[in-house]
């Protein structure tokens, strides 16, 4: 991959990889984005959802008569209405079922109970208050640790014969081998830790507009979907609608973070509403609805153990997880993996053995679990191992950087198969950690910390405590391969179609969909790189299932690894076709041509050649083409990735902690990412910046806790805190470049790296400052202070 030779376009942009401003930003910055709530159509009606105020209750009766009598209300839909359509319960992405509207019981606070369709959104909301629901309150299951207690209330009484709240048991790795490794260890450290329930909270909440055209039978759904094609197929399978008459359209999305992968009740209700009324029906949830009912993330109670020799060689890791999935098992991950990719928890180190057991349980909480840039639970895995390594360093009084350097996988071990079966494609970890330490000035920081500790020990309390925290992460992103990874039987491979128009301008059609990642730019640059045309001349078309090839969409950092591979290959196919056309025009054999700087030219006679623009016109012209070439300049491809790509990185966080108040200030954050070659370094850096802010948020302030009645304590932005610029330092970024050997461009995914890698660095830093072995996130001032008193609290429950 040489980036140096890249020529530039008339607009000054690189024809290929390199820094350029995002093509989409001029539109976004001028307020010309088109989000779901911007949709308006003649005669459009507005839906609103009545939600359960309680966590667990029988529904004794629902009286909708007063709401129906509201002069502007067109229809009221309840679970009973849906039962007549066979749509009250629908399958989830994890082979469970979920209620679209509650029928028998409500199972979490905020669950959908009824749907009002009215002429305007104000009347729809007003009419919700006119619906009378009689509940018979049941005791809720709030504490996941008590979900399997004998006598715990059974949540899924809808499932025949279900007598407990158990969902699944799952394991990975070799238990016997792991036990053997532990048996010979000199040091074993174990630690309980919670990765609490958090919520991705994209800026735009979820919404949909549905239109069933009674004349043509065509159903169009505009919605906030990270996977429009998968949605279309699922609607066809679930509702029995003919798939050729379903069109899913996703315009701009204001952030997704995995929250918008699944299908929500609101989407289904908008569709049903349009079928019932014959009008377009819009449903857009508000912030509290969004926080309380849509896909949350994490909620893993983990017991981890790490074993090492007295020299500090790590021998093995084992972990038991209690996974709180809420009241329906609706996690959005490759269907074969009930714990997602959690079994990558061996991380970046070399051990003899590893083993994990995961038990999933139902609780009276909203469903979800896989979201928030988690790479299918690699966030939890990285947090676990990076905390355990720090616990081990603390136990053995070894510098945590030293312990990591000693145990990181070495370059010559790649491709490397982990004890739990992952095949890491490429890596060169040591230099990445050393680069982070160099940027940080690691030794100077430790010296500064020692100085502060000495002064404090001598009675000078004027300075805050200082912490230095590291994390080293390995991610696995870019699902498939389709053989191993599917969602409800749909293999995780993605299509691309490229058309070069006669004037040499191109359209690239993709199955993935940008939610702010800059796809218009990155994918145009890929085509530009392969065809030698300016990125300005490449239009990237996404999000409309009638107008793009099939594929599973954008989440799990998969767009560049999968659709990026598809885009490169389809462009190469077009380039190969162009070679034949150029040869015909130049009256030579295709073998006589070589590709140089965006041009097919005659070997040894560079004066004679044709650019893609010239070839595009020739392809559509009256030029006599050789047999087997039909003309026009286009191509298609489906990319089935041979493996995941494995980006990695080393992060260092420096914090100051006020011991009198427990307040944490993130003073510095150094992030060295290796995601292979960077197509647009500016976009990559933007992704890293966002993920680091996420990490600060999760480590220090974000959590959705529940009180003992099952009330959601994070249901608004007053209670669920997102970090602001005030909490974020000026990020210090670095890079190393280790290409993926199997990706056509050598690139790896990066969208989630920083979200995955940064929380343990922040937590390790704070705990290093206060010299406490462990306390659960979020490390709010109260939690830090309590941890210093030796009494941290549980962050998943109400603080008492």
């Amino acid at each position, binding site marked *: 991959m040489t980036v140096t030779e890249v020529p530039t376009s008339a607009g000054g942009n690189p024809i290929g990889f390199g820094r350029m401003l995002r093509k989409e930003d001029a539109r976004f910055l001028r307020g010309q984005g088109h989000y779901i709530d911007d949709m308006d159509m003649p005669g459009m009606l507005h839906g609103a959802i009545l939600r359960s105020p309680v966590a667990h209750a029988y529904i004794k009766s629902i009286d909708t008569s007063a709401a129906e009598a509201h002069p502007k209300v067109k229809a009221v839909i309840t679970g009973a209405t849906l039962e007549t359509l066979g749509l009250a319960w629908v399958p989830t992405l994890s082979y469970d079922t979920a209620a679209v509207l509650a029928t028998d019981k409500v199972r979490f606070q905020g669950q959908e109970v009824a749907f009002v369709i009215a002429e305007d959104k*104000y009347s729809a909301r007003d009419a919700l208050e006119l619906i009378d629901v009689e509940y018979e309150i049941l005791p809720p299951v709030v504490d996941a640790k008590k979900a399997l207690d004998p006598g715990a209330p059974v949540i899924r009484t809808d499932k025949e014969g279900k007598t407990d709240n158990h969902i699944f048991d799952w394991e990975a790795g070799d238990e016997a081998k792991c036990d053997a490794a532990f048996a010979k260890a000199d040091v074993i450290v174990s630690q309980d830790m919670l990765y609490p329930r958090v919520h991705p909270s994209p800026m735009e909440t979820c919404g949909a507009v549905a239109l069933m055209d009674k004349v043509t039978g065509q159903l169009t759904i505009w919605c906030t979907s990270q996977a429009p094609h998968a949605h279309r197929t699922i609607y066809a399978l679930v509702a029995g609608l003919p798939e050729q008459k379903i069109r899913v359209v996703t315009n701009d999305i204001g952030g997704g973070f995995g929250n918008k992968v699944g299908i929500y009740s609101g989407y289904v209700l908008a569709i049903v509403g349009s079928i019932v009324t014959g009008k377009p029906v819009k449903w857009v949830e508000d912030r509290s609805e969004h926080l309380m009912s849509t896909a949350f993330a994490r909620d893993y109670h983990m017991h981890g153990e790490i074993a090492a020799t007295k020299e500090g060689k790590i021998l093995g890791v084992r972990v038991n997880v209690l996974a709180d999935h809420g009241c329906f098992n609706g996690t959005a991950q490759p269907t074969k993996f009930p714990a997602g990719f959690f079994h990558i928890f061996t991380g970046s180190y070399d051990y003899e053995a590893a083993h994990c057991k995961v038990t999933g349980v139902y609780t009276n909480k909203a469903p979800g679990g896989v979201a928030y840039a988690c790479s299918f639970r690699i966030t939890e895995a990285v947090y676990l191992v990076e905390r355990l390594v720090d616990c081990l360093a603390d136990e053995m009084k070894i510098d945590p950087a030293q312990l990591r350097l000693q145990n990181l996988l070495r370059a010559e071990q790649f491709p490397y198969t982990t004890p739990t079966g992952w095949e890491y494609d490429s890596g060169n970890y040591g230099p990445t950690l050393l680069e982070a330490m160099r940027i940080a000035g690691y030794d100077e920081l430790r010296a500064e910390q020692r100085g502060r500790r000495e002064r404090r020990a001598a009675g000078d309390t004027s300075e805050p405590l200082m912490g230095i925290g590291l994390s080293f992460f390995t991610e696995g992103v870019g699902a498939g391969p389709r053989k191993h990874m599917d969602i409800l039987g749909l293999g995780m491979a993605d299509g691309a179609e490229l058309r070069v128009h006669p004037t040499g301008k191109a359209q690239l059609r993709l199955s993935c969909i940008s939610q702010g990642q800059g796809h218009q730019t990155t994918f145009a640059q890929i085509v530009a790189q392969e065809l030698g045309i300016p990125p300005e001349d490449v239009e990237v078309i996404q999000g409309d299932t009638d107008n793009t090839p099939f594929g599973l969409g954008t989440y799990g950092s998969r767009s560049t690894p999968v659709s990026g591979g598809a885009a490169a290959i389809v462009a190469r196919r077009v380039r190969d076709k162009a070679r034949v056309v150029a040869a015909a025009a130049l009256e030579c054999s295709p073998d006589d041509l070589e590709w140089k700087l965006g041009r097919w030219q005659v070997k040894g006679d560079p004066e004679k050649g044709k650019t893609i623009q010239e070839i595009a016109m020739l392809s559509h012209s009256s030029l006599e083409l050789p047999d087997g070439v039909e003309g026009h300049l286009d191509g298609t491809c489906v990319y089935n990735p041979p493996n995941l790509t494995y980006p990695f990185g080393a992060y260092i966080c420096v914090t100051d902690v006020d011991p*009198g108040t427990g307040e944490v200030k993130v003073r510095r954050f150094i992030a060295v990412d290796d995601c292979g070659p960077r197509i647009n370094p500016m976009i990559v850096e933007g992704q890293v910046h966002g993920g680091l802010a996420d990490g600060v948020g999760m480590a220090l302030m974000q959590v959705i806790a529940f009180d003992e009645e099952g009330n959601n304590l994070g249901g608004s932005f007053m209670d669920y805190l997102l970090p602001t610029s005030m909490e974020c330092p000026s990020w210090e970024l670095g890079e190393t470049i280790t290409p993926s050997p199997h990706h056509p461009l050598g690139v790896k995914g990066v969208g989630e790296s920083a979200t995955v890698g940064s929380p343990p660095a922040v937590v390790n830093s704070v705990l290093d400052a206060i010299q406490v072995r462990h306390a659960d996130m979020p490390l*709010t001032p109260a939690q830090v202070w309590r941890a210093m008193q030796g009494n941290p609290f549980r962050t998943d429950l109400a603080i008492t």
Partner: protein
Amino acid sequence: MQIPPPFEYERATSIDHAIALLDRLGPEARLVAGGHSLLPMMKLRLARPEHLIDINDLDMAYVRVEGGEIRIGAMTRHRELLESAVAAEHYAIFGEAERVIADPIVRNRGTVGGSLCQADPSEDLSAVMSALGATVVLRSKNGERTVAAREFHLGPYETAVQPGEIVTEIRVPIRNRTGSAYQKVERRAGDWAIAASGVFVSLDAGTISDCGIGLTAVGVEHFCAPAAEDALRGQAPTEANIVAAAQLAADASNPSSDQRGPADYKRHLANELTARALRRAIARAQGGS
């Protein structure tokens, strides 16, 4: 988007007009100032006024010195108080508190009067005004009356404002050789206080001649800690006296546990923040300002 129930809207053109509207429209009418407390409550359908009387056109936004007092108009925006040179000249506490109230967007609209009338138990300016011994001026068709800040708050979200009354002004006495300070701990910039303490200290010949200690979010009555103040008056501004007074402030608190923190932590903060505020205020008073 969160959507409020239906309401009617009137825009007052003068204080008298606002009072007349309050009289005519009765108890289901509410004044709206910056709207940053009232509108969120309406959108959450926790407040359902039938009429809103908008007082944004009234001439009540000012910070000026008159009669040995700082007079702050009820419609003064947080931002105006934050940036007021007059306020800063006499009391550092105003700037220190305002800087950590909400965020710039809220501060651009939210008002001093609205803050006090909202009487949220975690509200910052209530602690400030209580510490400073301010007076609240109210008007109704029966004329004007004043209420001490420490008697203005009757409980969470409850004030001395009577039906038909509007707060017009807040008055703060100016004191010599006085320092003040505000200390707040929040989970994140823009969040409400986990706990906060604001104080003023006046010095006279090496002793504390007067002081005020206000606390918010920790469940002290009327946002103040009189026992701690009494313990300091007439004493030397020593570290031992500071520590003792801070402990009394913590003793006066009765915080409840919530997602901002457990009660023991908040009580600890009442102590820690009061001590810090006192140290700062004393240093400022000694600095001659």
